[in-house]
């Protein structure tokens, strides 16, 4: 959290420095297409490796269309990871895939030269599928957990226009989500022990200080 705050403040300070230089006013197009791309997850190791924060901090790409002061977008995120380790010299492998969608609608609150401030709403869909395989000479045990998370978000975005078509952006989101985990265990030699357990729905509210910088390309 401290690292998040420091990063955020550093970013704001750098924006402040840049904004001191008065540049041309590129205006605001009433209709336009944009593509918001993650400029790489900011240095924050903890956020990057926390699956729960995956979508919220790692939108990879979001095509956008703006009409008057409204902007409609479709955020998309995806990640795969493979880890292998041993327990008592027995190989364990974890394959994880995560996929997230977030349709958004935002409203341009402030448009002052290089600065643009948006506020918006979004719907959230996250899907995570983790497959653990435990291999031995006699069987390969698998444990799969699937998490489906749905919800909505309220967010604010700050854009700083570097040029007519390129902006830097930060996002401050608040998420309200409902999640459910389904765990499937498969023991080939002990079918009676194999199971599918559906967990209860859990609800959570999450707020993240920006941990990612976006590049917004506009037509």
């Amino acid at each position: 959290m401290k690292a998040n705050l420091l990063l955020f403040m550093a970013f704001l300070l750098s924006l402040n420095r840049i904004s001191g230089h008065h540049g041309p006013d590129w205006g605001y197009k009433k209709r336009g297409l944009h593509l918001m791309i993650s400029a790489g997850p900011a240095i924050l190791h903890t956020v990057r490796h926390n699956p729960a924060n995956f979508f919220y901090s790692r939108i990879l790409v979001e095509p956008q269309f703006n009409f008057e002061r409204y902007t409609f977008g479709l955020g998309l995120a995806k990640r795969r990871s493979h880890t292998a380790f041993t327990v008592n010299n027995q190989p364990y492998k974890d394959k994880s895939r995560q996929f997230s969608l977030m349709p958004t609608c935002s409203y341009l609150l402030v448009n002052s030269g290089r600065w643009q401030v948006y506020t918006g709403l979004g719907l959230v869909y996250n899907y995570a599928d983790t497959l653990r395989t435990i291999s031995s000479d006699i069987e390969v045990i698998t444990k799969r957990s699937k998490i489906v998370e749905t919800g909505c978000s309220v967010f604010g975005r700050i854009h700083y226009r570097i040029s007519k078509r390129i902006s830097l952006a930060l996002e401050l989101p608040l998420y309200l989500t409902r999640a459910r985990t389904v765990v499937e265990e498969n023991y080939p030699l002990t079918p009676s022990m194999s199971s599918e357990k559906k967990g209860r729905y859990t609800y959570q509210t999450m707020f993240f200080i920006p941990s990612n910088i976006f590049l917004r390309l506009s037509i």
Partner: protein
Amino acid sequence: MKQVLASGTLFMLSVLLSFNCTKLPDQPDLNAIKLNLPLEPFEYNILRTSAGNKYLRYEDSSIIDNNKATIGRILFYDKALSINNSISCSSCHSQENAFADAVPFSKGFEGVSTLRNSMHITNLFDSRKAGYFWDGRESRIEEMVFAPIANHIEMGFGQIEFIPEKIGNLPYYRSLFMTCYGDAQVTEKRMRECLGQFLYSIVSENSKFDKSLQNPLVKLSEEERWGLSVFERNCMSCHAITDDNEFSLWRDTITYANIGLDVNDADKGRNGLYKIPSLRNVSKTAPYMHDGRFKTLPEVLNHYRSGIKANPNLSEHFGGKQGPWQLYMSDHEVDFLLAFLKTLDDDEVTKDPKFSSPF
């Protein structure tokens, strides 16, 4: 710019399309597993003692059955008995360590440390009256054998009714159960019996000390004989030499003791007491005590010489509530005692192929 947007859209589509579910892996060919077993089963039921050949009894009414003990041997070494196939009984009771473990706390099926040091499991028949485990909580071998399998730290099965199902699905057991019981059905009762019979068959009786009692040509050295006298004076109150040369005290009344390891016991054992272990193969079964705190025998002896602490449950041999009393042993006597303890090592039981892994 249009190109950038187009490529971004293509990227997004490719991301969507590439997200497919992970495929389940193939299972190994179980028929490819071959066991290293003799054509005729090993002989498990004869116990040779100074009194001549005698049957090793499994229960009061039965003797060790070679076929059952053979199945027990396979089960003992089969990692299938842990829920994730990572460890077997032998992982914590290895033959080379005289069926103990070389670490203070063994690792369970998920690599988590067990709560107590693994006891050696030779001559279990002789120690049955004292109960099994450091707190003697199990009194029957059939109950004892499944306790680690069901334990959530050790082998992780939790519910033991699943174990026969798993073993029954392993093809290499079918012919063995068929030969032994007339059908290939694997039941919990049969598994308990086979494991129990194998464990009872692990008898250590060929130490130099045993041989010196049986064969006049085998003599203890002078140093070892001095060590025996030190042992008789200081250790035999608890580690009695019984008729079967079992170096633990389970004769009648005292089978558990508190030896003042701590002022307050973190592990309460059996109401503050712990089982007095057999000293057979004692130099091979380090580390020592219920928590494996002593790495060497000299450390153990130093505890008895100067490390015994007052404890509400301290053994009367160390002063009880008036204690702690330390044992007086000179440095020379300690050396003699160590030499004697070495004569309790049985290199045959640690190398005998009938107790070795068939995998």
